[in-house]
Structure formats: C-alpha cells, structure tokens
C-alpha cells in the first residue's frame, strides 16, 4: 500500500488534466473532479492504516520517483517523504478536500465554468499534497508555489469583476513576497549546508551550526518569511480577507483548512532549524500573538460573513504560530487539524447561507435565519462552539494545549498567554456576534434551504461531527517532534481563566447583539467607538499603509518611466547627431567661393600645422 503513495497526488493531477484538456460534460466533470480526490482520500486512508500499523520507530517512508535536476553539487529529486506529520496533513487535505469537493458539486451547480472550477480544485489538491510530501525543499517549493497559483486562479475564478482579479493578484503577489524570502533562505541553506534534502538538511544544520548563531537565525528568518506570507501572518496578512472574493468552497478548502496552514507546516517540518534559532522562534510566537489579537479585533466589526471568518482564520493561524513559537509543535499541528474541521464547517455553512440568501453576504441584511435554515444554523453553532473553543469541542482541546504550553513558556510566557486568552475572549465575542446577528433577531428574509441538496448537507454533517469530536483524535506526532520538557498543564486560576474566556466573550456578545442591541449602537455612535470601528474595520490600516508606502511609490515610479528613461539617452545621441548634420549641412552653401574658402582653410590648417611644428623643432 505504501508504494502507492505516488498515486495520491497523481489522481487529483490526472483529474486536473482530464478536466482541463477534455471538455467533459457537467455530470462527468463532477464525477471526475470529486472522484479523483475521493480515490486519493481512500488511498490515504489505506496508507494511514498501514503506516500507523508499523512500529513507531519505523514510521518513515521515502519514495523516489525520478531525479529532477542535478547540477554540479546540487541535486533535487522528485521524491516523496512520508512521516506522521506528512500523514496528518495528507489526511486533512484529502479528507476535508473530498468533503469540500462534494459540497462544491452542489454549490457550483449553476456555474457555467463548472469543470474549470473542479480542474483548479484538483490541481490544488495535487499541489498541496506535493507540498506536504516533498522530500526536499525544492519540491516543497513546487507545491508551495502550486497552491499559490491555484489560490490565485480560484480567488479570481469569477473573472468578470475586476475586484476579484485584483484580490487574486494581491493574494499571489503578497504571498510571493514571502516566497521570495523563502527562496533566498533555500539559497542560503544550500550554500552553507550543500543540500536541500529536508532530512539531511536538518541533520547537518544540527551538526554544523551552533544554537543561536547567525546562520541558522538568518536561514530560519528567511523561511519564516515564506511562512508568514502563506499563512497570512503579520505583516503579510492583508491578502487573506480580500481572498474571500473566490467561491466559498475555495475559502473553506484553501483559505481555511489547508493552504494557509502551509506556513505552520513549513515551520513544523523544519523545526530542527528553527530550534537552532530561538530568537526567530520567539519572533514567531510574538507575530502569532499579534496577529491573533489584531485580526480578532478586526473580525469584531466586519459585516461580511466571509470576511469575519477570514479574520478569524488569521487569528487561529496566529494561535498555531504561537504554538510553534513556544515549541508546542504537536499542539500547533493538532490545532491545525481541528481548525481545519471547524473552519471548513463554518465556511461551508456560510456558503450554504449565502446560496440561500442569493449571494448576499452582509450579515446585517440577514437575521432570524435560525428557523429558515436549520442545517446551516446548527452547523454554524457547532462550528462556532469549536471555534470559540468551548469545552468538549475539538477546538477546546487543541487551543487549550496551546495556551497551556504558552503559559509555561520560559520567555514572557505569561504575557503571551494573557494576550492569547484575551484573543480567546474576542474569539468568543465575534463568533457569537456572527451567530446572533445572522440567525437570531428579526426575520428579515425569505430564504429557505430548498436549494441545497444532500451533497451540501452531507459534508456539513460530517464536519459537524468532526468539529465536535475531532479533539479526541490522537495526532501521532510524538516521534516527529522533540518531547517537551515541561508538560503543558494549566492549573488553578490560569486554567479557569482560559476556560472562562470564551464564555465571557459569548456573554458579551449576547448582551450587545442579542440582549440589548441598542448598547452596541451606543458604543458605535460615540466618537471613540466610531474611530475604533473604522480603524478595526479597515484591518488596522495595513492596506492603507502599504498602499501609501509601497504600492503608490512603485506605481508612480513605473508610470513615470513608462517610456524607458534609458531610451531618452539614445534619443539624445540621435538628436545630437541630427543637430551636427544640420550644422554641417549649412556649410554646404552651394557657393563656389565658399567652397574655395573651405579649401583655403584646409590649406592654412595643414600648412600652418607643418610650419608650426617646424618652429617647435627649432
């Protein structure tokens, strides 16, 4: 079974080729699109069963497909590397991926570009699988860029509107900034360690570099750049909210469950390197905390249902980064997994709402949907509970682990923990705000769930189950990561606070958005509230800042130089030559005596030169 590993990415890829090259009829396209991922999921399941059945110490499998490139001392092979970490990721990608594909059949039912959608989706799954299975950093980079491409294609899927295109380009370019940093990191690693094979690299990094020295710090920082871009962390987070322009299944699959977690995966994958660079690791934690807080506040004031979820995704990714930063590797991956469950659920549910609302996304135009859209409602509630990390839901387990690990973290652990708990509180607020506004209150619409079929409901139900009970899954990562010295265990006040935070959040939300909505209006009405709201709504002004600081100057420069300033230099030369031509032409007067004068001048010069030289010699 393990030998079939290569088939896992191959099936979606084949699906992509089939969909892209042959104009399949819609039904068939659906079968191919969903089926290829389904088969991949089944294969993954089989592989997982066999793999986990092996003794823990042998849980490593490498499959070399072919030599990709070899140049001098540099070699990159097309090889897949399976270990528990990759396996977890594979399961998420193919499992959730399959559900979302299934969901998409219903969601995209009326779209004329149905098979194009599935082609992109399949390509994405293939690329994501390569990313996590890549044996070396170049192959990982292939997947990395591949998912970025698919993200671009799918955000701009509805290409009619220029805003979608803008959002897609923004996503690609902002992440590309991170990718470039990562690429430079690759160059640095290769230059000093002579290989880009991940396992060898980690080995020799540990052998050659002292902890905290410059090179590992630099390398880790550069890789971190890539991770920040992909996972929409500060300061490269601005693309993610705009990425919601894509169809909702995309937001679920790419911008919640899988692609955006690639940054987390990258750091986890290269944790040996990061551990050699504690400074960078601390930066990871700080960035995580800042991001979770900032995006939490931003989510508080958003009105677009998908944007709220997008900021919440950023926030949750912040938790994962925090976990990585404090060395809670397994917790990070665990949270990655549970987050994939409940965030996919939330997105899919919001998609269902959006469909039923005929593509209305403003939550304040919804309301009272609890009765009208029962499936969506319950999905939202379950997903929201998990997101807010209420006890017994999957989110609780993972988040709790992270907060625990943070609390005991040696370096400013308390502060980080406090901020993270504050974040949890805010999570509670915005999650319940969303649910209260959309599903409770006055009935403003005539929506019903008649337009969603089983292929939409079924994934929702499965994800509900996973969101509720996914926390019970044991992530088999013990051998992948170093054991933590201090077992994270919260006790006493800290524990109580951690558990209580989301409840407080829900309570606040209940008060402001259900119990006494006039309260929230009052807050929003005073000038400080207005200002804060505007500030938060704009995502803390990052877009504005980047626009002024980077985009505008660049655009100005580019526009100013449209005609290529270098060319004007050559034009100047040409102009000079023409000028000389005109001047000389003027000497050609046509008058004989003028010509004779020219001759006389020549004679004077030549004879004069001769005579003058003579005198010089005497």
């Amino acid at each position: 079974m393990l030998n079939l590993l290569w088939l896992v990415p191959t099936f979606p890829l084949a699906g992509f080729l089939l969909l892209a090259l042959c104009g399949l009829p819609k039904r068939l396209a659906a079968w191919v699109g969903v089926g290829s991922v389904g088969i991949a999921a089944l294969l993954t399941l089989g592989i997982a069963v066999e793999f986990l059945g092996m003794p823990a110490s042998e849980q490593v499998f490498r499959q070399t497909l072919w030599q990709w490139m070899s140049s001098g001392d540099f070699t990159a092979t097309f090889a897949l590397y399976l270990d528990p970490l990759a396996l977890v990721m594979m399961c998420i990608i193919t499992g959730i991926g399959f559900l979302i594909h299934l969901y998409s059949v219903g969601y995209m039912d009326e779209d004329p570009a149905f098979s194009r959608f599935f082609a992109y989706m399949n390509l994405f799954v293939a690329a994501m699988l390569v990313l996590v299975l890549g044996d070396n950093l170049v192959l990982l980079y292939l997947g990395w860029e591949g998912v970025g491409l698919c993200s671009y294609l799918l955000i701009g899927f509805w290409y009619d509107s220029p805003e979608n295109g803008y959002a897609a380009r923004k996503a690609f370019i902002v992440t590309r900034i991170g990718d470039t940093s990562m690429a430079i990191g690759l160059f640095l690693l290769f230059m000093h360690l002579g290989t880009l094979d991940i396992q060898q690299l980690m080995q020799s990094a540990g052998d050659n570099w002292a902890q905290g020295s410059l090179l590992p710090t630099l390398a880790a920082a550069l890789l971190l750049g890539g991770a920040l871009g992909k996972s929409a962390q500060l300061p490269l987070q601005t693309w993610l909210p705009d990425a919601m322009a894509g169809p909702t299944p995309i937001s679920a699959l790419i911008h919640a469950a899988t692609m955006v977690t690639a940054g987390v995966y990258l750091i986890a994958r290269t944790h040996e390197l990061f551990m050699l660079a504690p400074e960078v690791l601390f930066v990871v934690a700080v960035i995580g905390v800042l991001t979770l807080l900032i995006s939490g506040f931003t989510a508080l004031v958003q009105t677009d249902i998908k944007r709220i979820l997008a900021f919440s995704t950023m926030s949750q990714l912040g938790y994962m980064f925090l976990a990585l930063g404090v060395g809670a590797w397994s917790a990070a991956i665990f949270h990655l997994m549970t987050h994939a469950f409940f965030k996919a659920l939330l997105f899919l549910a919001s998609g269902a709402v959006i469909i039923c609302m005929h593509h209305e996304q403003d939550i304040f135009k919804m309301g009272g949907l609890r009765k009208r859209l029962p499936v969506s409602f319950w999905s939202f509630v379950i997903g929201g509970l998990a997101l807010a990390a209420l006890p017994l839901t999957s989110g609780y387990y993972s988040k709790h682990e992270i907060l625990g690990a943070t609390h005991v973290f040696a370096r400013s652990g308390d502060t980080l923990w406090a901020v993270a708990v504050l974040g949890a509180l805010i999570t509670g607020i915005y999650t319940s705000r969303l649910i209260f506004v959309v599903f409770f209150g006055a009935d403003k619409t005539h929506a019903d769930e008649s337009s969603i079929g089983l292929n939409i409901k079924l994934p929702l139900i499965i994800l509900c189950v996973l969101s509720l009970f996914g926390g019970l899954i044991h992530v088999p990562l013990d051998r992948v990561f170093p054991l933590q010295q201090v077992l994270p265990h919260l006790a006493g006040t800290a524990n109580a606070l951690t558990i209580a935070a989301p409840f407080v959040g829900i309570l606040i939300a209940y008060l402001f958005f259900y119990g006494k909505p006039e309260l929230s209006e009052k807050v929003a009405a005073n000038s400080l509230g207005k200002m804060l709201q505007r500030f938060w709504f704009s995502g803390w002004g990052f877009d504005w800042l980047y626009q002024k600081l980077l985009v505008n100057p660049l655009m100005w420069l580019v526009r100013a130089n449209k005609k290529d300033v270098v060319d004007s230099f050559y034009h100047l030369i040409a102009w000079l030559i023409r000028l000389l031509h005109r001047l000389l032409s003027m000497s050609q007067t046509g008058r004989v005596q003028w010509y004779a004068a020219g001759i006389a001048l020549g004679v004077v010069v030549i004879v004069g030169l001769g005579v003058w030289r003579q005198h010089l010699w005497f």
Partner: protein
Amino acid sequence: MVLVWLILILFLGGILAWLADRTRLADPRWIAIATILIDLLVLISFSLSSSSVTIAGQEWWATLDLPWIPRFGIHFILAMDGLAFLMLLLTLFLGLIAVLSSWTEIKKSSGFFHFNLLWTLAGVAGVFTALDLFLFFFFWEVMLIPMYFIIAVWGHENRTYAAIKFFIFTQASGLLMLLAMVALVYFNYQQSGQLSFSYFDLLGANLSGAPVFWLMLGFFIAFVVKLPGVPLHTWLPDAHTQAPTAGSVILAGILLKTGAYGLIRFCVPLFPEESVIFAPTAMTLGVISIIYGALVAFAQTDIKRLIAYTSISHMGFVLLGVYAFNSQGYQGAVMTMLAHGMTSAALFAFAGSVQQRIHTRDMREMGGFWGSAPKMGAIVMFFSIAALGMPGLANFIGEFLVLLGAFKANSWITVVAALGLILAPIYSLVVIQRIFHGKPLVPRDISDFSSREVLMMGMMMLITIGLGLYPQPVMETVGLVLQMGVS
C-alpha cells in the same frame, strides 16, 4: 560535413521558397516547413549517431576545419557540442513555430518573407556552430540582414524606425566586437607568432594586461546588446513590437540567445581572468536588467512591448548565471535560455494572433476575452505563469539554478535579483487581467485559437512542462560543455 549541410539546407530552402513564390509553383510556407523539418531530421539523426572528439580538453560531437582566408589565418571551422546542439534544436524548433505563427499573417510576397526567415535561421545556425572568430562574426551579421528585412518590410506601423534602430545597435556593437577580435588575434600573433582566428588556437592564448580587459569588454558589449542587458536594451522593445509575429518569435526566442551563447562560448573562455574581475559588474548589470525590465514592463499598455520588456528581465538571469562561474549558474543560464525561448515565443505568437484578430496591441482596448476564447486564455495563462517562474515549468529550473549559483558567487546581488521574483507576477498577471479577465470593454467577440495555433502552442507547452519536470537530459547535454568555464 553534416554541419555544413545543416546551414546549407536552410540557405537553399530559403532560395527555393523565394523561387517557388515567384514562379507560383508551390506555397513557400510549406517549403519553409519542409526545409526546417529536413534540417531537424538531419540534426537529430546526426546527434544520435555521432561520436565525440576531444579538442582542447573539450568534447565535440563534430568538427570541420577548412582553410578559408589563409592570409589572416582564417579557417572555416564549424563544430558542435552539447550546447550548440541544444541551441540548434531550439533554433529549428522555433523556426517551425515562427512559420506556423505567421501562417495567415503574411499576405504580401510570402516567398521573400520565408526566404528571409530561413536565412535568419541559417545565420543563427552558423552562429551556434562557428568556431572561428571571423566566421562567427560573419554569421553574426548574416543573421542580422534578413531579420532587418523581416521587420522593415512586414512590420507594423513604426517598422522603419524599429528596424534601423535594431540594426544600428547590433552592428555598431558588432564592430566593437570585430575590433576586439582583430586586436585579440594580433596580440596573440605577437606573442605566439601564429596568426589564427581559430577559437581553439585563441583559447590557449595567455594574454594579460589592461588592453586585454578592453578586448573582453568589446566582446561583452556586443553580446549584451544582443542579450539584451540594461542599459543597452532599448532597441529591443521597438524591434519586438514592430516585427511581424514570426519576427518577434525569432527575435525573442532565438536571436537573444545568440548573445548569451556568445558570452558563454567566447567572452568567458577567451578571457577567463578578465571575466572573473569583471563578474561583479556583469552580475550587477544582470540584476539591473531583471529589476528594470520588470518595472518598465509593468507600465506598458502595448502587449508586445510588455512582453519585450519581460524578455529583458528574463535575460538578466542569464547574465547573472553566466557570471556566477559555477555549474548551477551556467546550467541555469542555459535552461533559462531554452525556457525563455518557449515562453517568449509563445507569448509573442499569442500577441500576434490577437493583433491579427482585433488590429490593435493596446491592452486598454482588450478585456474579457476568456469568455469567447477560453482556449486562448488557458494557454496564455499557462505561459504567463511559466514566465513568472512557476516550479514544475522550465523557467523555474533556469531561474532557480541561476539564483542558487549566483547566491554562492555573490549573495547580496542575488538577493536583489530575487526581487525580480516578486515583480514577475506583477506584470505577468496584469496581462491576464487586462486581456482575459474583466468585462469586455466593447462587446467584441474574439475568435478562439484555431487548431493550427493550438497545435503550435501545445508543442511549446509540452516542452515547457517536460523541461520543468525532467530537465536532467538537457542539463547533462549542457553539462559537459560548461564545466570548461568553471574556474
């Protein structure tokens, strides 16, 4: 002898195409296709059967050495090694593409057009195989003239200006190179007493001192003009924009490569010490080209002009790679040459077909083409993302290896060069956005690619993917040669 045939077939084919058109006996397009196919066949069958010879510590698949102008020690030396073979393959393949891409575009005197086209190819084939400096220069100029005609006669609205600019830039820098060649030969003559323009004789020349540096510069300038590198690039946007489709395809796909080839084959090996001294400057120029080309490309509204500037950006990588002086840099440079040959040719072919359809190259008058021409959209999307360096496609291999190698040689310059990776999507994606996405400004249905165009693009796509996923055979073919340059 087969090397002579490779060139001769193209020359004869050109004449035949012209005659056929004048006598109305046959369609010159088919003659051109047949000529190129025969040449390809000869090349491939030869490469399969050849055995290598070693001259001056380097392996050659075939050589030919005839006396030509004994007065100056000029020989008619043709030789082929892996690099030359690849370049020839690229030349002939893109020649085929060029003929196909202008299939319906050339209405007037198609015979003379294909004559020029085939003669350009013949000149290029000569450039890639000539190993006597004089002969090299000879071909260097021979490829110029028919190209000049292609632009000047069948070009677009501003063709005269573009053609003359193209010619003057290349020729003026070519004269510098000729001067440097002659001076090199005479310096060598003074030292060794042997008057010879042969590459092999000059390779061993052990010259040093300040004037030699200037000679190297003479070669360098000529090649960088052709490459082209900033600030010697300004002929290129005009020439590419104004040339007919086939002309743009050949210019971007092949002619630019002769500059890079010249650097690899002549400039560096003939002046190894000077090149090492010069490397930081050359690499800086490469980086400036990468960044500057990308920035200017982004500002363009004329699609062909935009693609032309991206060529400058991409060829900057080649410059960077060549002067990294390690295997990765060298092989990356060659890979970039091949990859850029495919993508730029494809994009120019696309631009040409759009112009043929809607009679404008201004992207402000386009938009929303995807709806009516999805095949076109998908194909252009493919080549755009190939151009921006998507892993798995050929360009990535080239750029990645170049940067990898250059980083070892000069980290800071390479870091700046890597910024090009950020700029590439900015201009690439904007093309897609402006042409294919959005709503059509004017309700204008654009007809999708015909099967001829799909076939042509398909071939290039396959090669781009093949080179991206399994470049090893190509790199091995190149490898043998480029090890030479590693000092």
